[in-house]
């Protein structure tokens, strides 16, 4: 998916002694980041990790040497003699002295890094991200009202450009986190936290809620897709369109079933469905996953999700609908027209 040429990844594999990282870098790993909102922190993290490993190795070696160097069998009468309190203080002077210098150095490096990852004054795009139990709603802001649109759980951004993210919560505290692009920012009711992202390479970046938020905290993922400028423009154009009217009789029946059973919570622009409690489904089929990253967006998964959401994501706000088989398949047919 993304280039894996970084020598750091190789170093990580060596340090962790892990074949775990051998094949591909896992989607949530921030051993390597892909944008200026995360990169300075990643460098600092590697620096601190290397210092930490050196400290642990040095102390362990010293401890083993200290323990073994004058060991006597306990039968030896000298073993139990008590020694006077002398010597040893240079250990404290040197050890604490060196530690202090290293710590102050790291604190200064940290301050510079805090400044380096601060949000740039100019951003090209503002997204209003609203977290809810257990999904993400994303509104693309614009000064032109007809260019504002809302999607869910999958964010597209133009590659190489800073994007401002404004965070709001609909219920409890969540945390917005796309590890390969930037660190976490909590989403707290009653306040608007702001963070930013920039992806320097096209690709798909996985994110997941970072603050415990209840029963399905484990299944509150999202994806950020960084598109080339051309692809991004096409994607925006497509998203701005209303849903196409059903072309077939089956889809038309499906739209009716959808309006009857689903429209209280879900919106499909250009139709009567205008619910705001659940994800906007206007271009559902343009997304790669459903149920906040729980399942790949395939017809089978979609059917299973509608038929029994509680089995797949217990506690989810999507109720068990008990649709008849006919309504279910009609709804499914309709949903698959929402490209």
């Amino acid at each position: 998916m993304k280039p894996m040429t970084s020598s750091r990844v190789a170093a990580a594999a060596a340090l962790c002694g892990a074949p775990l990282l051998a094949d591909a870098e896992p989607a949530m790993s921030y051993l390597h980041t892909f944008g200026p909102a995360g990169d300075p922190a990643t460098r600092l993290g590697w620096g601190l990790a290397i210092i930490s490993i050196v400290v642990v190795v040095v102390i362990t070696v010293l401890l083993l040497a200290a323990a073994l160097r004058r060991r006597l069998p306990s039968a030896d009468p000298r073993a139990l003699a008590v020694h006077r309190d002398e010597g040893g203080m240079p250990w404290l002077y040197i050890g604490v002295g060196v530690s202090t210098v290293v710590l102050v150095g790291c604190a200064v490096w940290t301050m510079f890094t805090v400044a380096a990852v601060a949000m740039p004054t100019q951003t090209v795009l503002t997204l209003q991200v609203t977290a809810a139990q257990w999904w993400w709603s994303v509104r693309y802001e614009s000064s032109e009202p007809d260019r504002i649109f809302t999607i869910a759980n999958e964010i597209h951004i133009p590659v190489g450009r800073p994007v401002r993210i404004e965070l709001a919560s609909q219920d409890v505290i969540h945390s917005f986190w796309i590890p390969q692009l930037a660190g976490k920012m909590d989403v707290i009711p009653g306040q608007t936290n702001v963070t930013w992202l920039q992806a320097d390479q096209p690709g798909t970046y996985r994110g997941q809620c970072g603050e415990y938020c209840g029963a399905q905290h484990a299944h509150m993922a999202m994806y950020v897709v960084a598109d080339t400028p051309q692809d991004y423009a096409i994607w925006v154009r497509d998203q701005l369109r209303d849903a196409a009217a059903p072309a077939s009789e089956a889809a038309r029946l499906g739209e009716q079933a959808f309006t009857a059973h689903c429209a209280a919570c879900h919106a499909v622009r250009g139709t009567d469905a205008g619910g705001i409690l659940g994800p906007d489904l206007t271009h559902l089929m343009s997304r790669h996953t459903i149920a906040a990253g729980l399942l790949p967006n395939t017809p089978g998964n979609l059917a299973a999700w509608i038929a029994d959401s509680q089995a797949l994501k217990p506690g989810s706000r999507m109720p068990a609908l008990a649709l008849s088989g006919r309504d279910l398949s009609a709804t499914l047919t309709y949903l698959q027209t929402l490209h």
Partner: protein
Amino acid sequence: MANTDALRVPVVARPADDPSIALRLQRIWETRAGWIGALASVDHKSIGKRYLVTSFAFLILGGLEAAVMRLQLAQPNQALLTPEQYNQLFTMHGVTMIFLYALPVLSGFSNFLWPLLLGSRDMAFPRLNAFSYWVFLFSGIFLYASFPVGRAPDAGWFNYVPYSSLAYNPGINIDLYALGMVLLGVSTTVGSINFIVTLIRTRAPGMSINRVPILVWGTLTASVGNIFAVPAVSLAFFMLWMDRRFGMHFFDVTGGGQPLLWQHLFWMFGHPWVYAIVLPAMGIVSDGLPTFCRRPLVGYTAVALATVTTMVLGFGVWVHHMFATGLPPLSLSFFSAASFVIVIPSAVGVFAWLATIWTGRPQFTTPFLFFAGFVIVFVIGGVSGFMTAAVPVDVQLTDTYFVVAHLHYVLIGINVFPVVGGIHYWFPKFTGRLMNERLGKWTFWIMFIGFNVGFFPMHILGVLGMPRRVYTYSDGLGWSTLNLVITLGAYLFAFGVLLFLINVWRSLRQGERAGANPWNGPSLEWATASPPPPYNFAVIPTVGSRYPLWESQMTGQTGESTTAEGFLLDDGRETIGTSVLDAVPDVILRMPGDSLAPLLLSIALVVLFIGMLVQSWWLFGAALAASLLATIAWLWPEARLGQTMDIAHE
């Protein structure tokens, strides 16, 4: 009795010359036989052992909860537990380990050991001591009552609002947690007061403040910290309960409240608390290590001051739990820098222990292995904490398994390893028998290896992006193999703990009998019999140096400590009160006898909290009246204690 009694000069005696002294003191101090006697006992040694046993029972409960969670997480997408069950288990695991095990177990050591280390006959407030234990026990049962009533707390031990508010968590479980914590706070507070006054007032003559063992410094520091920290969390939980049950809006956004207020109050308590549950354990190592290195601790003064400094700084770092909450960069920078600085006093401890081992002659006993192993684990937990001090790094690491690794290295490494080592060390003093060394060494190696196999991979899991507090995870994110390894390691660690319990069980029956000082240790607890008599010391010892029992063995050591001759104090329960810094004797302290009042007051108090929980105000009122009566019974003046006399103030 005459008025002059208060001004009496205590008799100095040599117990070796007069065997009747021991008998007389035994009669004065012993707890009456039978279960009423046991319930009324205020003997610090019984209370200390009760604390130890009770906290280990909670450790086992918390461990079982973890064992079930590790089964659920061993493989991706498992359904052994429902999300709701998992969330209750991880919440109760945290609550149990942090509140019902980690501090109480150290209170157990300190309760048993303090009067022995300080050369006194009991804690300053023996009845308060009993009360503190009973309230701890009952609040633990209160919190665990949530399981039988159908639902345990499930908002995490940190219990963030608004998830823990009525709107999102309508059950009684959060009320149980909130009120249980307020109740437990009573126990912690009175226990802390007792330690502080005991240190200030009841040290043996000559034990000036720079001669007390480091364990005493650790517990003192923790106690002072608790006095300032516990009110914040008690207040927060009380406010939460008022929000939930009386429609207040302290944390409710729709009523102008602030969710972040909860986090500030919780962590203003929570971070000092972390130090409260490690500093006494570090004290155990600082006092135990010299015995097995056959030399005094290197840098006593530096270590004692570092202990205090850690706690002072510990009150200035709470925001590092909140780096991702959107606070301004300037305040983040301040707390980030403070979090780096707090590593310095920890470094003092590490280098003092290393130097003590290096310049000493280590004996590879089981306690030594635990204390030395602790140093490595402490350093790993320290450097992972150091990494999270950097704000930009922390916003990646926070709420991932990296932090789970860090906190277990800190809490298991710095609390459990010294505690298990300390139990091997003081077991002869607790019981009169030694623990089995061979089994002890097996215990150490299995616990040490199991711990590292179980918890080290969590660091890697964290940087691979696995969030904390998830009941399951998907395959294909690189987390599956590590999780399996972690589960296996955790079970190996649990097996080590089981071996330890078996060793305790066997040694209680078949352990080799220990004399007064089986390790040739330096401090006063080793001067009295194993187990100590109810009165601790036949006469109050006199202390002339930091290591009173080593004075005769160290060349060039000056000091005139003695336990052979001292104040007798046998007119009822008495001990000597000394001055704050230099421990010059200045008053005879009359100590209260055994009483059921602390138990009765604790029962009344827990009923009062049940009344609040179920909002039964007549029950609340009745319990309030009962607790007043119990308090009156507790404080009823006794002639024995000189409380009914008119003392002329001349």
